């Protein structure tokens, strides 16, 4: 019997081996190396050990602090907006609006195009001499004309618009998919009771979607934290005057333009740690949600 067990383990290794090898190269090794690099000065060929110096440089760098602030702004503005939009749209779509399949289809379109293509378009759109302003002038709203991407006030909001534009389809589709598993009877009963669409949204849709909403929120927070590089890199490069700098851009510039890879590694560790904490917190929150349902 024992020989069989060993044989089994060997076979399992054959199947799972290649997977684990690649995972180790692409995930495990870099994560550990980041810790190593964050404690050294990599701009010197000798790579001397410098302890926590890179972390100190990071915390003292006003650009890093601006980046963190901007990521927070993204999280606390975009996530609620996306949840709201996705709830409303999915709730409305679910109640069989005419042509709902078409709408669901179109709403995912932004999500499948590359952020780069989208970003390049919106770079032109939000320019001082871009399409938005041309349109505003055309309908005699000249007073609203602003150099959107060129203003330290409006550049980040412009980017936020683009992020929402691209992301809301995914949330809508996600909630919608979950809604289709909700038993019809619940909705039918509510309709018979004479509720309107809005009440049904609050009393049925949202509670049923509770776990998906939580998961979506977690996913979007992580996204706003570390999957927005594309938008910023293509549209503003962190400007004007660093008003759209985000943490990923900071890592990129420090590593590849400022030749401070140690600092960039330190920031990478910070992002990883925050993501891990969020994941852990989300897991606990979800298990507690499950417990409540029981």
């Amino acid at each position, binding site marked *: 019997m024992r020989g069989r067990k060993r044989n089994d383990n060997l076979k399992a290794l054959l*199947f799972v081996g290649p997977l684990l090898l690649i995972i180790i190269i*692409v*995930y495990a090794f*870099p994560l550990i190396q980041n810790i190593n690099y964050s404690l050294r000065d990599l701009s010197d060929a000798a790579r001397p050990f410098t302890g926590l110096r890179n972390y100190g440089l990071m915390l003292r760098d006003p650009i890093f602090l601006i980046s963190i602030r901007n990521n927070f702004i993204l999280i606390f503005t975009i996530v609620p907006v996306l949840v709201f939009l996705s709830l409303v749209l999915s709730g409305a779509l679910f109640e069989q609006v005419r042509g709902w399949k078409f*709408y669901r289809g179109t709403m995912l*379109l932004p999500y499948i195009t590359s952020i780069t293509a989208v970003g390049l378009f919106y770079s032109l759109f939000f320019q001082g001499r871009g399409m938005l302003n041309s349109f505003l002038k*055309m309908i005699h709203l000249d007073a609203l004309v602003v150099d959107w991407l060129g203003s330290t006030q409006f550049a980040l909001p412009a980017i936020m618009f683009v992020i929402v534009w691209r992301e809301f*389809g995914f949330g809508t589709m996600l909630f919608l998919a979950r809604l289709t598993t909700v038993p019809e009877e619940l909705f039918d009963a509510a309709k018979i009771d004479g509720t309107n669409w809005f009440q049904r949204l609050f009393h049925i849709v949202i509670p049923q979607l509770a776990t998906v909403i939580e998961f979506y929120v977690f996913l979007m927070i992580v996204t706003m934290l570390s999957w927005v590089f594309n938008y910023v890199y293509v549209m503003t490069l962190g400007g004007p005057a660093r008003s759209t700098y985000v943490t*990923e851009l900071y890592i990129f510039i420090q590593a590849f333009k400022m030749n401070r*890879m140690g600092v960039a590694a330190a920031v990478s560790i910070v992002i990883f740690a925050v993501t891990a904490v969020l994941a852990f917190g989300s897991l606990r929150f979800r298990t507690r949600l499950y417990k409540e349902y029981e």
Partner: protein
Amino acid sequence: MIARQILFIVAAAVVLGPIVYILMASFKTKMDYVRNQIGLPHPFVLDNYKKLMEDGQLLKWFMNSAIVTISSVAVSVSVGALGAFGFSKFSFPGKEKIFNLVIALMIIPPIVMIIPLFVLASRAGLVNTYWSAAIIYTGLMLPFAVYLLRNFFVTIPESIMDSAKIDGCSDFGTFFKIVLPLSRSALITLTVVSMLWVWNELLIALIFLQREELTTLVVGLIRFQGRFRIDQPVILAGIFASMVPMIVIYLIGQRFFVNGLTAGALKGE
């Protein structure tokens, strides 16, 4: 009811508007773009697409994106399927823990791994080769692949696998002849979603495929402005051309996209 119809018409307009504009403006001359930005093309020209093709770059970028996408997706789906099968049909010490660890990696953003991977690739002389980007993309797609496929594999009844074994099938045989064919839709879904991600990816291509011959589509779009010559309609034509493959695949296999994107989330709660 009407309110909702209006809501959706507005939403659809917001979504489709830019795409329609990009297409429309890609037929303008530069002068027309500058003077008459929002109006219809006047004159209507095909020059921009001609310039894209003649310049030779667009085709090259497509090729590079295709090479990197196909190779990394092929490997990640294959290795992911093998691994998922291993996780679902065997038991070995630490299986659950290792599996949970692997799929937890899904949420780690690539930016976190970039620097050590760059140094490693540099040492191995692999920067500016397809290898570095392909291996990294493969690795980044594996957790999701394993997650999606294992969830699917566990739904295949034991009885089918057992009867195959009785017929004298080895484990590999079972994998190839029974499990894979049954998982066709899951595999297609995974392939489609993975391809979407790699095709559109910027950061890794930007860092590991910098050489002009290796430029992928997204990187090429950014670089497409000569240092001092700007031709916005040509850029818009390039943007539209870059969107076409994914839109086509999407229109053909919308359900796979939807399945793939939701499966990750729904089961993950």
